[in-house]
């Protein structure tokens, strides 16, 4: 770690103002930031500790949803009875991520802001456009087994590793942010994470000097909620492919389906056209294959990660099969 100075924030707007200064960064749980600071991949010269701000409550919204404070721990969010009963896909996704120790520290806002990353982002001896813009991407022709098959560019194919964010996407969450003079705005989760394009170092639409204060969930959509994660070991590993699904059946047909994916894309992936392909369809392999075909039409492997394309198809078929068992 390079040296830094430390301050403890006393208000959300004050924290946002302090974080707007050159070299400053917010720290909450710190599980991703400190990991990267030890490797000098992140090099803040000033840390603004927001971990004691009063943003750790989950409250009901007037519209029938829930407002989750940015500092609610991943473990507490997964265990909350309202999340477990009404937003099971979110609880399941959180429990599929990281380890119990990390979930006890990691926060809702911090989880959304963890870096989109691959092994070359961590390897400071190799080029990485995200770590060092313009240096090149070692993953494109390198070891890319874990990299993205959707949403990549010629500059970056790193995956966003968050399970939580995949569930947030399928639930159409909104992210509340505040700036240094107390102005607030809401960002739909669909617009929060960015595609890498030419600027993979810019991962979110959060502006410098803005801080996440809460994530709001709309009322739960009708239907069964599932989260399926496929990975190299049974626990504590990033997804090779994960599927969040909310499927509503009516009169023997699929009334609506929402699908989001982890491990496949350079950001938490949602595919409305694949969902539309399922709406009104009869449950069955033919419908599921058609939806998978839409989802993966533009998927592009880079050698090591080619297997993710058929794996995504099979995982989606399995999840839809499970969701539509009467």
């Amino acid at each position, binding site marked *: *770690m*390079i*040296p830094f*100075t430390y301050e403890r924030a006393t208000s959300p707007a004050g924290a946002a103002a302090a974080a707007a200064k050159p070299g400053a960064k917010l720290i909450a749980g710190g599980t991703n930031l400190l990991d990267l600071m030890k490797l000098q991949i992140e090099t803040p010269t000033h840390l603004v500790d927001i971990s004691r701000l009063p943003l750790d409550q989950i409250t009901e919204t007037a519209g029938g949803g829930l407002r989750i404070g940015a500092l609610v721990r991943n473990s507490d969010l997964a265990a909350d009875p309202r999340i477990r009963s009404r937003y099971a896909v979110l609880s399941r996704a959180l429990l599929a991520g990281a380890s*119990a*120790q990390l979930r*006890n520290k990691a926060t809702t806002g911090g989880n959304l802001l963890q870096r989109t990353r691959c092994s070359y982002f961590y390897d400071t001896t190799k080029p990485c456009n995200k770590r060092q813009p313009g240096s090149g991407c070692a993953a494109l022709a390198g070891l890319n087994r874990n990299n993205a098959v959707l949403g990549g560019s010629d500059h970056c194919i790193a995956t966003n590793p968050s399970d939580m964010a995949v569930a947030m996407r399928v639930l159409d969450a909104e992210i509340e942010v505040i700036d240094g003079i107390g102005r607030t705005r809401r960002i739909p989760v669909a617009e929060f994470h960015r595609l890498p394009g030419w600027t993979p170092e810019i991962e979110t639409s959060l502006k410098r000097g803005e801080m996440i204060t809460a994530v709001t969930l709309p009322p739960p959509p009708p239907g069964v909620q599932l989260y399926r994660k496929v990975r190299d070991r049974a626990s504590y590993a990033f997804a090779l492919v994960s599927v969040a699904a909310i499927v509503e059946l009516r009169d023997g047909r699929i009334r609506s389906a929402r699908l989001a994916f982890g491990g496949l894309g350079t950001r938490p992936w949602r595919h409305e056209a694949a969902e539309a392909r399922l709406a009104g369809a009869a449950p069955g392999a033919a419908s599921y294959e058609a939806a998978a075909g839409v989802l993966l039409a533009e998927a592009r492997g880079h050698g090591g990660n080619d297997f993710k394309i058929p794996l995504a198809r099979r995982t989606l078929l399995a999840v839809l099969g499970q969701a539509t068992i009467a």
Partner: protein
Amino acid sequence: MKESDGWDFQPTRRAVLGAGTAAAALLATGLPQGAEAAEPEAPTPVPVTLEVNGVSRSLMLDPRTSLLDTLRDHLALTGTKKGCDHGQCGACTVLLEGRRINACLTLAVMHDGQKLTTIEGLGGPQGLHSMQAAFVEHDGFQCGYCTSGQICSAVGMLAEAEAGMPSYVTANLAEHPPLTEVEIRERMSGNICRCAAYPNIVAAIRQAGGTPA
């Protein structure tokens, strides 16, 4: 809970090394390994008070000091181990305000005024914690390097299960999860044992948790 096993009065080689490291960190520039000369000087040490195993400990620390390094290098509580130092192995697991965390991935300064329990605080030769005794009884280790992390993690895990917190393998999110072997293995996945003593670790935890196999 007691402070530690008499470290202040029995200078061992480890204690002398630890004290030297602590002094160096305070007096010298405190640059990390591999740091380059062009970097700014180390920031001014900041006051930090932690309640460790029931004893208030006040220190002056470089803000960069992890909770793990604080325990080992500044408080000579070397029961907490450094494995990967990146939150992947669980060897540094301690209980912060009763909840298990990786001490390597947090800064001591962030926990000013908070309560910490380490393996030394759970019990010692004069009186083992039931989890420590169960690990001994079931031979829940081989080399022992991961053991303090396993034990602290297991104590935190039992509290989580007791509180009804679900896990990835909990079949029904509406139920109070049962403490089965599958549940224990999933809940302990943040603690790696490279000797692969897992069957005995699980047996020890089942016994301490009141659900012997």
